[in-house]
């Protein structure tokens, strides 16, 4: 099923995949800490305050201090929890987010291409993102405490609702590209980036992505002034850090998917592919933070209404428009199935 390297022997392909995966994972784990810092700094800047500035110059060593604190903290498992599921829950969200990175292409050639250039990449992404829900459900249920269960229930309802609009928005882009392979989707954007052909789809995807990653204004599952911390109320130390890591990896992953599907992926003038990819992800991450700093939290019934009464009908409309567009202007999207 792998495309680019299929002429090489199996062990060689495996070796390459392992090397690429370890480099990517190392980079991601290293970068996440500083992303947290970046987010705090950006929010501070938008709100006119200095932000973290004690550890190192401009607070640059703050992540190091945070990680050390989380690692050396006492690992406490409350006596009333279901132990196996309590420990498994934070692992699930991190693993599903990490595995999803295997399908994002970072450049045109095999060296920078996706670790696993699957023909069904889009479906794999959807499958993994739908499995991430279990982490939250199980964390909420196994914690066996009021706030955690409420947060878990809210998060489940929210994530399965917004997943529908997310996948339908993605489907319209797939229709234009005529493939489920992310690398080919990028190649299909040679003439126009899909954000130009699919502005509505991009908007729907972005809103759903914020809801999927449970960030403000859709952070009801962990609304601290009503639910303490939602599903991860009972978690501490490294297990809490895993939830944190999972959330940030999810945000970068969704930014990466958006950059790949709507913003032309690794394409761009002068600079090499991976640099463009990182730039696009950085811009999208900034917008995520910007929205977080700007909008107040939605009310729960509003959240459900936005999902079911606005985004999903809009996504269906977008699908119909895309289908008509593909049939009437075959030159605009040469790769679409006619």
């Amino acid at each position: 099923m792998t495309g680019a390297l299929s002429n090489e022997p199996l062990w060689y392909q495996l070796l390459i995949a392992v090397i690429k995966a370890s480099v990517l994972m190392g980079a991601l784990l290293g970068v996440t800490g500083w992303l947290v810092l970046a987010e705090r700094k950006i929010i501070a800047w938008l709100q006119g305050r200095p932000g973290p500035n004690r550890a190192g110059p401009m607070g640059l060593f703050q992540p190091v201090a945070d990680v050390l604190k989380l690692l050396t903290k006492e690992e406490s498992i409350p006596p009333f929890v279901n132990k196996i599921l309590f420990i498994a829950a934070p692992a699930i969200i991190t693993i599903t987010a990490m595995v999803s990175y295997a399908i994002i292409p970072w450049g045109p050639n095999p060296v920078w291409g996706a670790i696993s250039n699957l023909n069904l990449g889009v479906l794999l992404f959807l499958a993994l993102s739908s499995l991430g829900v279990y982490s939250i459900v199980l964390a909420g249920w196994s914690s066996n405490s009021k706030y955690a269960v409420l947060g878990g229930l809210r998060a489940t309802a929210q994530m399965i609702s917004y997943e529908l609009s997310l996948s339908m928005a993605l489907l319209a882009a797939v229709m234009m590209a005529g493939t489920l392979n992310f690398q080919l989707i990028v190649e299909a954007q040679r003439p126009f980036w899909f954000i130009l052909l699919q502005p509505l789809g991009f908007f729907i995807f972005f809103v759903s992505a914020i809801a999927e990653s449970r960030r403000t204004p859709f952070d009801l599952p962990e609304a601290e002034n009503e639910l303490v911390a939602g599903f991860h109320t009972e978690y501490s130390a490294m297990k809490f850090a895993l939830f944190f890591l999972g959330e940030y990896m999810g945000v970068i992953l969704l930014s990466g998917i958006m950059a790949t599907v709507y913003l032309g992926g690794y394409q761009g003038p002068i600079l090499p592919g991976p640099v463009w990819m990182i730039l696009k992800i950085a811009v999208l991450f900034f917008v995520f933070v910007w929205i977080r700093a700007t909008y107040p939290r939605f009310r729960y019934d509003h959240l459900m209404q936005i999902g079911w009464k606005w985004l999903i009908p809009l996504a269906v409309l977008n699908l119909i428009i895309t289908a008509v567009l593909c049939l009437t202007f075959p030159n605009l999207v040469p790769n679409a199935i006619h």
Partner: protein
Amino acid sequence: MAQNILFYLAAVMAVATTSMVVITRNAVYAVLYLIMSLFAVALVFLSLNAPFLALVEIIVYAGAIMVLFLFVVMMLNLQGQRGDEATKRPTRRQMIVPGALALLLLILIVVSLSAGTPAATNAALSDPKLLGELLFTKHYLGVKLSGIILLIGTIGGLHIGRGGSIPSTMEKPIDDVTH
């Protein structure tokens, strides 16, 4: 050879997890084992050269339907409905039909395994494009019918679920949540 390994791995996993679904008395554990069983079945599909179906199985079954199950079980758990249940001992009369069925299938297993093993006669194509074409040309009527069924399911679920509000979630103390 790869198919052999994949098949046996998936089959053992499927049978083991499915047995646990039936054995375990805790509704939440049953749902979780069922999810694992669905993964195993997806692996079986993969060994049959049907990766599209394998992923659809995970997305639709494990990703959507099972979340719904877990959601309902959690909600009932909250309201003091115990997740555990006593084993219902089936009466002898109730065991006749499953017993006969099992016997029949046992005979089938013995007969079929003693027969030769014909190899796969076609490399079942895994191209989703082709599957889509087939779906929207030859099986067009089926697609329309399943659309209608989905609509009926939506309306039915809405109508049934609408009647009578669920009693307040937090009436019972949380200690009643069972494992």
